[in-house]
């Protein structure tokens, strides 16, 4: 049984969702399976789990507690493309890793991959630091929109071609705290984009 509140407890956030795609229990079960697999694959390797702020923190927090071997954790943050950043050129590192990773077994943890643009950039950035190994664990995959192929060592779920929120996935920085993944109602999407 999940220790999270039921969907209706989330009030307006839950009301803005038209359909639950992945329940809290389904996500918990899959995260546990991923944790078990990573615990087996990285035994005695003391892996460094690298997460991406902000969206990836939910998955990272749950996943690392399902891993039963010694691990270390670090985070990165990069500027995303936006109206404000697009004229500045390339992606800018907002928070780098705290320690060098040369010779370390690095497992990159990301909550979602769609085009693969951000992940591709980050992996290039990490590869030049000469880790002993560098693999990727993604919880949600929207593969139809992939522009850059990124090898995924671990994957949680395939997501359909819809605008989804919850479990770290946001719409204008909201809905990340929903403990499930759901499709945002079209009127919510439209209302916000019309400035209302």
């Amino acid at each position, binding site marked *: 049984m999940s220790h999270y509140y039921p969907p209706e407890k989330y009030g307006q956030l839950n009301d803005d969702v*038209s*359909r639950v795609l992945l329940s809290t229990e389904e996500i918990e079960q899959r995260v546990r399976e991923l944790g078990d697999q990573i615990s087996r694959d990285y035994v005695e390797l003391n892996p460094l789990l690298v997460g991406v702020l902000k969206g990836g923190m939910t998955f990272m927090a749950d996943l690392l507690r399902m891993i039963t071997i010694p691990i270390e954790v670090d985070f990165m943050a990069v500027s*995303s*493309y*936006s*109206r404000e*950043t*697009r004229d500045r*050129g*390339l*992606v800018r590192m907002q928070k780098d890793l705290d320690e060098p990773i040369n010779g370390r077994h690095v497992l990159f943890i990301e909550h979602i991959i769609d*085009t693969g*643009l*951000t992940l*591709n*950039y980050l992996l*290039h950035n990490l590869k030049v630091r000469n880790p002993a190994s560098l693999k990727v664990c993604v919880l949600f995959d929207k593969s*139809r*929109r*992939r*522009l*850059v*192929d990124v090898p995924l060592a671990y994957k949680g779920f395939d997501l359909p*071609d*819809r*605008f989804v929120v919850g479990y770290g996935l946001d*719409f*204008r920085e909201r809905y990340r705290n929903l403990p499930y993944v759901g*499709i*945002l*109602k*079209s*009127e919510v*999407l*439209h209302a916000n*984009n*019309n*400035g209302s």
Partner: protein
Amino acid sequence: MNNPQSQPDSTAFVHPIEAEFARILDYYGIQWEYEPHTFTLTTDDEGNVTEAFSPDFYLPQQDLYVELTIMRPKLITKKNRKIQRLQELYPHINIKLFKRSDLRDMMIKYGIDEQAANLLGTDAQTNES
């Protein structure tokens, strides 16, 4: 990851969404070319080209063509047919279609409100409650 071929400000894009797409690729260091190739789809009895297709973008590092469409889902039958024909005639070609809803979601994700607003009204996201 340099980007010598990308020139979004000097390329004559047909639609503003293509310019935005090019700027996104530039931002993430992905090389692109705009409509670099035209593929013959049909010819007449004398060998004259009667139908051709020029995908919007080619990403050389990925060996991937990308076609963008802002047409509403009910109106993209002709585009889908062209892509299907392209894949039949040129099976080694990798091509991806970014539909109106894909582009809308991409613009929402990156907070490009003016482009996202232009792409609303699609039935790609329906209320299924």
